[in-house]
């Protein structure tokens, strides 16, 4: 590792990711933690973009920042009372945490120490058409299996939501009476 290898873009993104990840864990306010998590995920997307994987970067932002962080915010807001959002930053068992964290630190350090100490040259840019071709030919089975898994998750979520309706209403399932809208 020499100064010639110094990569300001990589360093900047790494700093953003590390600092925001730290605040995800340390933030006292749940909403702040979730918003910091959004920044961490954006930084990860920036890594993907720098490694010539623009499609992955786009999907990362769309699903994680746009979808999951938004859903987490929604979850925090509908499950917690407005006043009790201040959460004790987890100090349940600091000793155990310390042991696990140092074990992971040692493991990662060993791996990094043994690997070649140069930044690998970025992979050639794959267009999204190439990606689609590979995904729907070579990896078709894995792709379809994942789709099935997601479908099962959606069906499961609907079943869980409906069951709660059954339990809470005395006359059986509540059929939501949404007003008809003519588009």
């Amino acid at each position, binding site marked *: 590792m020499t100064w010639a290898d110094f990569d300001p873009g990589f360093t900047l993104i790494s700093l953003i990711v590390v600092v925001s990840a730290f605040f995800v864990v340390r933030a006292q*306010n749940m909403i702040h933690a979730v918003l910091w998590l959004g920044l961490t995920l954006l930084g990860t997307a920036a890594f993907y973009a720098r490694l010539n994987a623009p499609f992955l970067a*786009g999907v990362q932002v*769309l699903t994680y920042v746009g979808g999951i962080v938004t859903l987490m915010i929604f979850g925090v807001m509908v499950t917690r009372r407005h006043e009790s959002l201040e959460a004790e930053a987890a100090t349940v068992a600091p000793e155990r945490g310390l042991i696990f964290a140092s074990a992971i630190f040692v493991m990662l350090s060993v791996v990094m120490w043994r690997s070649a100490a140069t930044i690998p040259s970025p992979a050639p840019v794959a267009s999204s058409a190439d990606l689609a071709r590979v995904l729907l030919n070579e990896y078709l089975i894995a792709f379809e299996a994942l789709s099935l898994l997601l479908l099962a998750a959606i069906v499961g979520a609907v079943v869980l939501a409906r069951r709660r309706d059954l339990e809470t209403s005395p006359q059986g399932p509540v059929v939501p009476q949404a007003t008809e809208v003519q588009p």
Partner: protein
Amino acid sequence: MNEFVRGGLYGGGIIVGIMSSLLFVLWAERKMAARMQSRIGPNIIDPTGFLQAMSDVLKLLQKEDIIPEKADRALFNLAPVFGAAAALAVAAVVPFSASIVGADLDVGVLYLLAVGAVSVLPVFAAGWGSNNKFALLGAMRAIAQSVSYEVPLVLAALVPVMLAGSMKVSDIVAWQASHHWLVVWPFFLGVPAFVLFMLAMLAESNRIPFDIPEAESELVAGITTEYSGMKFGLFYMTEYLHTVIASAVAASLFLGGFDGPGGPGIWWMVIKTFVLVVAIYWLRWSLLRFRSDQLMALCWRWLVPSGVVLVVATALWVVFAA
């Protein structure tokens, strides 16, 4: 490094261009609204009322900047800035002419959708940071709305992507130039997709008839309740930015972009964008606001199913007819 300089210069030029077009859009909207309501509109500053927007900005700059005592100061102050930045970021991949484009990404359409999805976070931060019931309710509505309307938006954007076989916005424009504009042929796919895209885009950017996050009859001013001075001005500007840029995106994806009879050029893009902006404001001043549950019913019972049917039909068309 050269690419960065070029991108910076073009990006700066495009941002300045869009921002200055806002002055004209603001003036046109005020005059149009006045006509539709049988009044005259701004005419005090100068006879045409064109300088009204500039004097409004001057006024907003001088106003006291009030921050509520119990507000979440960081979020409260950052939200308007990030909101405007997210709205402007979409313009990066829009080709305004063959050469005027900030960054012609290979995954352009995906980028637009991703930035659109992120832009709800500043809205939420504003509502949350204000520490005000009405603002928080507005933010909740904005998030529910944005998550729901993301689905028809993606489905509608898939139609031009599938037909052109590329996610690069300039490729989609080129495909339309060598075939037909998407709303012309195949119109049975293009027109519904265009309508779906515009509706979802309006809902994503919280415009009338989908502006329940700031429904002034029930929520005071929604997320902007606690904002004053230029921070409110930024929110106001962001709304107009959304409208202009969403129109430019729709013009590129469905109306042939910078291509048109008599040769391609930036003037086509300007004309098409302005026509769409006028259409949006026409809707704004003639329609009522949806109720929150009606909005969700519209999305999940009508727009999402028709989007799915549209995507399947497009796939069949691409395989068998084109």
